[in-house]
Each structure stands twice: as structure tokens, then as C-alpha cells.
């Protein structure tokens, strides 16, 4: 099978895509304390090239590269350039749109922040199962393992997640999606030690990998906690023709662990274009 596939490698051109988003986050500091929960808007642009090579009737390889830039005018330490690559194997169990598909993917992304402490690489290994029930309904069950290897200790963390998303196409133009997921493992968060209410002895007993940062001002620390993060999201996505869309997404995440909990809410509007 691999020999059969090898002769096809590189023959099909890449599919190019790009996106631009504006995202407002109510607690970009991931803080349990209201007076330290800062909001911000993040803008990003991304471009990607992906190759798809069908190896046999059921199995295909996809590989690609992407690059992007994110800007947070309010906290410019979060500005970053990122570049990554992905590799996935997809097996579709049968013919047609209603055949279930299984995908295993590995992605590796490097990030270079204005605040260089945050620089690092991220490895994500994931698998997903997609089932289309009819022309309108589709369900995606996904699991992943994430490892972030950062320059500073606080940005060394790993966790794993499980999510379920269902999509419904109201029409060929309008798509609704809703999902929920849980991440287990280390979560990165921040504390303002100049009045956040955190009790230092307790905090430093339970926080891990504390790193002083300057992103949000003086006396801020980044640290990791062992926690679980529950997310729910909803999106509505109008298609702008066959190759572009304008998804509006709302997501809320609740992180609970080691005696701390915090919420983040995010609203993002994106423009996605496939060439």
C-alpha cells in the first residue's frame, strides 16, 4: 500500500488557505481574582498550505505547514509569530459522505513572542472520529495530547483533552456548531502578586514553575496548576461563497484545580478563505 502511495506523493498541488480573526477575551490573565482578570482583544492572521495524498481507497496522508502572526495591542508582550507543520493519516471506512472517518494527526508549532520568556514549541498529537449522519448533521469526537516546551519554567506544561462537537448546516450557507470538551493536566495561569488576594505561602506551595513576567505589568507571575478545564462553545458560520466563511464563535472555559478556579469567555470573529 505504501509503495502504491509513494508513486502519488507530490503529484497533487497544495490547498492554500488563510484566516484572519479578532478575538475578545474577558480574562486573558486567567486569573481567579476579579481585580486581576484583565480583558483584551487579540488579532491574528494565518496562512497554511496542505497537501493531500490518497494512498488507497480508504487511506490518505495529509501534511502541511502554516505560519501566522498574532497581535494584542493592549498587552504587546503577547504579540507573536508562529510557524508550524502538521502530518496526519486519515482512514475513511467506506465510500461517500456518510462513511465514518478516523484521523490521527501530529502538529509541531514554534512561537516567538515579543516577551521572549514565552517562546517555545508545542507538540500536539490528536485523533478524531468524524461521522456525518445526513446532509446536515455531523459529529466530531476528538482526543489530544499537548506538550508545550517553553523557554521559562511556567511555559513547560502538558495536558490532554477530549471533546465532542456537532455541526448542523441550516442551509448550504449557514452552519451552526456546538461543542464541549475537557482538558486534564497542567494549565497555565497568572497572578498579580501586588494585591490579587493570593496568599503567598499557600500559593507557592501549590503553584508550580512560577515565573515572573512583564506582560501585564509589574508583580505578575505565570505558573502552572494541575487542573481540569471544561469548555463549551457555540459558533455560527455563514459561507461567503464556496471557499470562504465568516465564523462567529463564543467559548467559555472554566478551570478548576488545586483550590483555584477561574473562567474565561471569548468571542471571536474570523474570516476563513480557502484558495
Amino acid at each position, binding site marked *: 500500500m505504501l509503495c502504491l502511495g509513494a508513486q502519488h506523493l507530490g503529484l497533487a498541488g497544495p490547498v492554500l488557505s488563510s484566516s484572519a480573526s479578532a478575538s475578545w477575551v474577558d480574562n486573558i490573565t486567567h486569573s481567579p481574582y476579579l481585580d486581576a482578570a484583565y480583558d483584551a482583544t487579540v488579532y*491574528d492572521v494565518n496562512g497554511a498550505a496542505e497537501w493531500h495524498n490518497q494512498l488507497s481507497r480508504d487511506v490518505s496522508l495529509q501534511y502541511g505547514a502554516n505560519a501566522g502572526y498574532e497581535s494584542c495591542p493592549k498587552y504587546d508582550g503577547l504579540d507573536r509569530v508562529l510557524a508550524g507543520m502538521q502530518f496526519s493519516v486519515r482512514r475513511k471506512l467506506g*465510500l461517500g459522505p456518510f462513511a465514518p472517518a478516523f484521523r490521527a494527526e501530529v502538529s509541531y508549532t514554534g512561537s516567538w513572542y515579543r516577551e521572549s520568556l514565552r517562546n517555545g514549541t508545542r507538540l500536539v498529537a490528536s485523533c478524531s472520529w468524524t461521522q456525518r449522519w445526513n446532509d446536515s448533521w455531523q459529529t466530531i469526537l476528538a482526543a489530544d495530547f499537548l506538550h508545550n516546551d517553553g523557554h521559562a519554567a511556567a511555559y513547560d506544561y502538558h495536558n490532554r483533552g477530549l471533546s465532542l462537537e456537532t455541526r448542523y448546516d441550516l442551509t448550504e450557507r449557514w452552519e451552526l456548531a456546538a461543542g464541549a470538551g475537557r482538558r486534564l493536566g497542567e494549565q497555565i495561569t497568572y497572578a498579580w502578586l501586588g494585591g490579587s488576594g493570593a496568599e503567598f505561602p499557600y500559593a507557592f506551595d501549590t503553584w508550580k514553575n512560577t515565573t515572573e513576567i512583564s506582560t501585564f505589568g509589574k508583580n505578575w507571575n505565570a505558573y502552572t496548576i494541575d487542573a481540569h478545564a471544561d469548555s463549551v462553545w457555540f459558533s455560527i458560520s455563514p459561507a461567503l461563497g464556496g471557499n470562504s466563511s465568516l465564523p462567529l464563535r463564543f467559548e467559555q472555559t472554566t478551570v478548576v484545580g488545586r483550590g483555584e478556579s477561574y473562567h474565561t469567555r471569548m468571542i471571536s470573529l474570523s474570516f476563513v478563505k480557502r484558495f
Partner: protein
Amino acid sequence: MRTWSTSVLAAALLGLAAPAAETVKVVVRTTLDGKPVADAVVSATPLDRPAPPLANPEMVEIEQKDQEFRPYVTAVQVGAKINFPNHDTVQHHIYSLSKPKRFEIPLYQTGAAASEVFDTPGIVTIGCNIHDWMVAYIVVLPTPYFAKTDNTGAAALPPLPPGRYRLEVWHPRAPAPLVQEITSAPDKAAVLEFSVALKPDKRIRRAPGGKPTDY
């Protein structure tokens, strides 16, 4: 079946009997607002004698271009061969699960092409196993007398020798085909007008979706 209704504009010419003509033009419009319906296949099958077999078969082509099939609807006579060239820079994998013709063709290289013979009458729905939104229809007919409506909703059948015919109009979004018997007479012309209540154009969405962010 009340979904389809017909009116014979040429009734005055042809009398009260079913329309008879050597040349028949059909116009298809929507019931709701009278808009012209493109891609409806109109066919006339002789009832008094066997239909002439396929003569001088031309190679019909359904290309894959811009990750769509072109044309969306193709009508052929039984025995016709259809060529499927991949004119995209991405791979395609054509398949049909339809009873009259089950097949699959991997077209993994740009410029690759393959053909299939369609030897059983019926509707064949084709798709691409890589790009789920791609769909097209092949109407395999037991008669050489057929045509497809254009953007004005009009289709002109080839000249019909005198005799009785089963006239059928099919469209992908019509709940059922309309069937009517007509009689063709020499040196006559008729215009038949049909109205149809089309189902919504429900296809698998092609546009990309959004992705989560890190925040």
C-alpha cells in the same frame, strides 16, 4: 402526483388530443415563482417500437474542475461512455453507489482520466470520496430523444418520428419525474410547459469552518 403540473401551450395547434409534433420544445419553470429551471432532463421514449440503439457514440465528458463536477447534470443514452478527467491540481476519487451503475475511479494525478460505460437506464449519482460536497447526476436513458434545459428552462428534443412517446421530465430537486404520453405527427411543432415545485437545494456545505484559538 400534484407536485408537477403541465400545460400545453400548443393545444390549439394540436387539438384536444395529446400534443403531436415532429419537434418538441419543453419549458420548465418553478411552481412557486415561475423562474426557469435549468438542468432538467427531458426525454421521449417510443411506445410503438423499440428505441433506436446508440449510434455514433460521442465521448461524453464530466470533468472535475475547481473541486466540482462539470456539468452538474449529464444525460446519455444507454451504452454511452463517459470520460472523467481530473482538471484540478488536487486528487479526486469518483464513486457511484447508485444501482444502475456502481463504480469508483481513483484520479490521483492532475490530468488523469478514466471512462465508464453506462449500460443500464436510471439515475446515477456520483460523488468524490475526498471532497464530500462534490455531486453530479447522470441520467441514463433508453432513448436517443432527450435534451437538458438551459438557463432559460428550455430544452428542444431531437426531431421525433411520428408515433406515441412516453415524455418524461426529471430534475435532481423534483420529488418525482413527470410522465406524460404524447403523440408526434409529421410537420408539427409543439411547446410544452411544465411547472415543478422544487425541493430545497440541500447539498453538503463546501465552505471551510472556523477553528478554535489558544485563549
